């Protein structure tokens, strides 16, 4: 008999290797689309900004500003969506008693972190060569923001994956939430120019803090929001993960039942 921790580790490894193949190769050039989607968003928004004669935002190059925000947001949203759908998509795997619903959520989340980090390195290497951005001056801050946004995605995914299974309607609502989040997180407008009292409302969104911190990690003289507080993002994410884990435990049986 193996102990529980060994079983969990072998299951995570097996799931990670298994999930990676369809994620990268299921559709024709699926791996290419993973890269193309954020690039498309950057190009499209940059085109509009160019038309509006915006060349720089908050003291840094407009294209670089868009890129950092968008790729950081994609880390959150992809982790969140992939993790949210994990329990449902892996239903067939519960034939193997060792595989628990939460294992599939964690495996997908970790895979997304890995893929997005590779994609980000590739895209920023390109952007640095094209001189849209320079090498990050404060890589530690950048990594802290990156990790915080991923944790936020995991927190959302751990909670939403249970919600989706309990009620399909709730799942649909949670899915709808992603688009407004894209609009209010300061992906394509600087929150620092929004007048009060609206700015305080936008600042309640923890993702805004993560995105601004990522930009600040690249360029220290970037005019970030005054109220920037990365610990707010972390407290929010870790609380969400905690509640998510509680939900996973509370509904453990129900999630596996057919």
């Amino acid at each position, binding site marked *: 008999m193996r102990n529980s921790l060994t079983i969990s580790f*072998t299951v995570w*490894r097996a799931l990670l290797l*298994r999930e990676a193949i*369809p994620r990268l190769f*299921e559709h024709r050039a699926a791996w290419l689309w993973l890269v193309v989607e954020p690039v498309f968003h950057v190009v499209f928004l940059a085109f509009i900004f160019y038309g509006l004669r915006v060349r720089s935002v908050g003291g840094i190059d407009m294209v670089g500003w868009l890129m950092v925000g968008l790729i950081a947001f994609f880390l959150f949203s992809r982790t969140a969506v992939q993790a949210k759908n994990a329990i449902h998509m892996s239903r*067939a795997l519960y034939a*193997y*008693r*060792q595989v628990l619903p939460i294992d599939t959520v964690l495996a997908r989340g970790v895979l997304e972190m890995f893929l997005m980090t590779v994609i980000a390195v590739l895209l920023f290497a390109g952007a640095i060569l094209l001189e849209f951005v320079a090498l990050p001056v404060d890589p530690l801050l950048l990594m802290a923001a990156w990790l915080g946004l991923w944790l936020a995605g995991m927190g959302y995914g751990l909670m939403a994956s249970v919600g989706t299974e309990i009620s399909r309607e709730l799942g649909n609502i949670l899915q709808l939430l992603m688009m407004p989040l894209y609009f209010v997180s300061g992906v394509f407008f600087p929150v620092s120019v929004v007048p009060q009292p609206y700015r305080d409302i936008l600042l309640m969104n923890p993702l805004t803090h993560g995105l601004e911190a990522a930009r600040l990690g690249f360029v220290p003289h970037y005019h970030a929001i005054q109220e920037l507080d990365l610990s707010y993002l972390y407290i929010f994410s870790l609380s969400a993960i905690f509640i998510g884990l509680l939900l996973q435990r509370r509904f453990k049986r129900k999630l596996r039942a*057919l």
Partner: protein
Amino acid sequence: MIVLDNVHKRYKSRRGKAPWVLEGISLTIPSNVNVGLIGANGAGKSTLLRIIGGVDQPTKGRVERRCRVSWPMGFAGGLHDFLTGRQNAKFVARVHGHENDIKERVAYIDDFAELGDAFDKPVQTYSTGMRSRLQFAMSLAFSFDVYISDEVTAAGDAHFRQKSLNAFKELAGRAGLIMVSHGEGTLKQFCQAGIWLNEGRAHWFDRIDDALMAYRESIPK
């Protein structure tokens, strides 16, 4: 030994709660005996088998497995359509903790399923027969104390059926078996003991013949 303690099961249906399929089943199944599950259609044989195998969860009650229990042999789920036969086999080997001898396990599955080149093609290109061959080979590749089988011996073509029957006989000799079958001959051939499921309750018989007799007597004339 597998201990079932007051196991209840009902499924969710669109119109609220469906009636109980299993209603308070308490059993202790020793791991060195081959057991046949008997009952009418819809009596809950497959449901009980899935609960014992841990694929499905009881609504109420508890299952305790004090030995290594297989997943239901030839279970239709569990294969990822996009992955190849080999990749699926590797996944199952990893989940069962065979990272070290993964090569031997996969080679065994490859050899037994006799899929040839198709073993490295996505499962979505397989015929039904090829799928069940892969599934049967996967369940044989790992050693368990108790195997669970739901009408499994009827898979594949004549050649493969003969081969799997031989493998099944060998299995029944060395490990415990809990199986569902509508063929009385199959049950008598493989099982010593029997469980008769009737109206959500289970009745244990030390001899399969007695179980079959009880079942036959319950059928309205």
